[in-house]
């Protein structure tokens, strides 16, 4: 019952706003926040074991087959994730009240936010692939709506489109994967599939294909290489949205989904390896790209990518440790800690951007530490967590677990460590440039801390950013990070410490007191030219093919087949018509000829 309330309250809010409150932004925002509060309370209660079970709802029925909406209200993983989602969601709602105060599309914005909460809750609670796919698509929609909130800006409209398209490509794979699993096991429910695979292991090849296809969904949604390109562009949306959707929750949905079906990775180790490498590559590339970005949100976006890479890597590495009781928990642990500190960082950046009158270029900020102490301190906590400052930040613990998982695979391990160093480097760069030194623009020099409606969420988020990594806190959410590191723990800690120190020191010394970018590295700044490459690919593989198809359609189908037939018919018609010579004698001749032909024909039938 609680699960149903959690699921439906944001939907109702969104529906009511769309139907009746578009002209009343105040009421709309309040309704939306109310629904977020209800959701949070319900998830809290569920976490306390008051969820109970919910009868599945038959959504679509076809004879004996049916698609159902079933809610996993007594599943630990779902409860934990639900808490994260509703918690961050609530804070983002509150923050938005301030951030979007004067926006003309405020009601629309909150409707979108509520729709997103509904969809995300649906993903979390889904007990089968069909339902998850429904909500999977819905988060895509709400993400599209929210990124494109300022649709009058070309860049925002384009970014929304790009996000949607790229996600659709991932969804293509995801849907194919679901279909393959359906064919293999004959069902769509997670439990049923798991049982079917365990009792009757299918052919490995088909299993690998299915798992990788399912993973495609995660690649799209969690913005893994090579489908990562949409996430940085998605920063065109309002910053709270970036915090909620493009940092804490939606992009983590891919990881959540993979953890939910981690048994697939276990059943197909080769697929697991691929997944792990995809994660690793994403982590490293994103970190490299982050080092040269000037937009505060872009830096954070690339860091998100990088951290998601860690999580995906952890998912893939599950295959290396078969039979583990807590398979996938490493990834989920990082997801969980990351949600807090990344939301914190985004909201912090939102506050900064708000204070600087929507200025996002870090080189036009500077010296904000003195002017915005609350924001600065919370931002510092977030940065520390992201960099993995040992023992006192949540990020440290979760990253350490992942590195421990990767220890057996040296390549991935060193990628992880390298990424950690890069993370420390670019976060230091960001922090130094934004908060220290002199203010480099008018807006920056007049910035000040925003009101409590925006600072309180920051403060609230700062707490779990510190403590969430501790085992007992994680245990509240039923998270049990595995410890594969064992004896190697000191080595791992040492490596990550070294990376942290190296990166932070380099960042500090390079950027301290600089007024503009001291080093130019176009390859990283221009994101390995991947956008350009993709645009080229789209031109060739899609637009050119489309043009070709149109040409074929017009020339072959239309002109040759259809018009050709018409012409032939008409030509024959003219031919016959010109036998009508108009001359009487001609007719007589043809008549006589006709008689002869008929006669000869008829006699030829006689045997």
């Amino acid at each position, binding site marked *: 019952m609680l699960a149903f309330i959690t699921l439906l309250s944001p939907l109702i809010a969104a529906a009511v706003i769309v139907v009746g409150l578009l002209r009343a932004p105040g009421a709309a925002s309040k309704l939306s926040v109310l629904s977020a509060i209800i959701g949070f309370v319900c998830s809290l209660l569920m976490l306390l074991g008051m969820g109970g079970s919910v009868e599945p709802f038959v959504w679509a029925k076809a004879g004996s087959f049916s698609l159902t909406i079933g809610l996993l209200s007594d599943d630990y993983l779902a409860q934990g994730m639900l808490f994260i989602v509703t918690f961050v969601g609530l804070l983002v709602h509150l923050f938005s009240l301030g951030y979007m105060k004067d926006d003309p599309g405020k009601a629309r914005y909150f409707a979108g936010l509520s729709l997103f909460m509904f969809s995300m809750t649906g993903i979390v609670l889904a007990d089968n692939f069909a339902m998850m796919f429904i909500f999977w698509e819905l988060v895509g929609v709400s993400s599209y709506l929210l990124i494109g909130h300022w649709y009058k800006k070309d860049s925002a409209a384009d970014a929304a489109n790009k996000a949607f398209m790229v996600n659709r490509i991932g969804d293509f794979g995801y849907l194919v994967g679901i279909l393959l699993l359906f064919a293999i096991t004959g069902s769509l429910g997670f439990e049923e599939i798991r049982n079917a695979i365990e009792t009757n292991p299918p052919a490995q090849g088909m299993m690998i294909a299915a798992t990788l296809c399912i993973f495609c969904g995660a690649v799209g949604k969690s913005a893994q290489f090579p489908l990562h390109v949409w996430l940085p562009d998605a920063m065109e949306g309002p910053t709270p949205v970036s915090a909620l959707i493009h940092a804490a929750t939606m992009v983590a949905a891919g990881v959540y989904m993979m953890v939910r079906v981690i048994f697939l990775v276990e059943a197909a180790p080769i697929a697991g390896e691929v997944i792990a490498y995809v994660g690793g590559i994403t982590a490293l590339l994103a970190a490299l790209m982050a080092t040269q970005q000037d937009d505060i949100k872009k830096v954070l976006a690339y860091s998100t990518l990088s951290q998601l890479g860690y999580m995906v890597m952890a998912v893939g590495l599950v295959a290396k440790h078969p039979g583990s009781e807590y398979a996938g928990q490493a990834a989920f642990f990082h997801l969980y800690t990351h949600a807090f500190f990344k939301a914190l960082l985004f909201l912090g950046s939102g506050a900064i951007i708000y204070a600087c009158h929507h200025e996002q270029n870090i080189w036009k900020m500077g010296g904000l530490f003195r002017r915005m102490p609350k924001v600065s301190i919370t931002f510092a906590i977030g940065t520390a967590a992201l960099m993995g400052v040992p023992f006192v930040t949540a990020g440290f613990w979760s990253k350490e677990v992942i590195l421990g998982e990767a220890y057996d695979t040296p390549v991935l391990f060193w990628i992880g460590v390298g990424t950690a160093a890069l993370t420390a480097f670019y976060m230091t760069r960001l922090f130094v440039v934004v908060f220290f030194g002199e203010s480099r623009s008018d807006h920056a020099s007049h910035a000040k801390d925003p009101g409590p409606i925006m600072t309180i969420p920051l403060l609230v988020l700062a707490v779990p950013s510190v403590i969430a990594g501790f085992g007992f806190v994680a245990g509240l959410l039923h998270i049990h990070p595995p410890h594969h590191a064992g004896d190697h723990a000191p080595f791992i800690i040492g490596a990550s410490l070294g990376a942290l120190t190296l990166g932070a020191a380099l960042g500090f010394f390079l950027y301290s007191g600089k007024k503009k970018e001291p080093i130019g590295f176009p390859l990283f700044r221009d994101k390995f030219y991947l956008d350009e490459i993709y645009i080229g690919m789209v031109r060739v593989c899609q637009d050119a093919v489309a043009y070709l198809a149109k040409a074929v359609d017009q020339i072959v189908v239309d002109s040759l087949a259809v018009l050709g037939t018409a012409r032939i018919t008409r030509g024959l018609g003219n031919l016959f*018509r*010109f036998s*009508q*010579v*108009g*001359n*009487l*004698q001609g007719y*007589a*001749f043809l008549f*006589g000829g006709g008689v002869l032909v008929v006669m000869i024909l008829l006699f030829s039938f006689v045997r």
Partner: protein
Amino acid sequence: MLTLNHFLLASGLLFSIGLAGVLLRRNIIVIFMCLEMMLSAANLSLVAFARFNLTEAGMPDYNAQVLVFFIITVAAAEVAVGLAIIVALFKARETVHVNDLTSMKF
């Protein structure tokens, strides 16, 4: 000795000559005459058939001759009407040549 085929061949040849006339001549009146020839050729066959295939009474089937009588009558009427049309045409167009009658075609 004379057989039925002699008559039929004569009739067929007359028919063909008539047909040839229709196909060759350009003067509508002459064409019309050739058509009369074709009808007469048919008459010859008819009478010949009747004469060679006697009825049970041992006499020709006079029905055939009645038909010939009718054919001649009809042909006469046809000639009258046809010539009237040809005269009207001549009045309007000053020609009885088939090649001049091609205002409608295709």
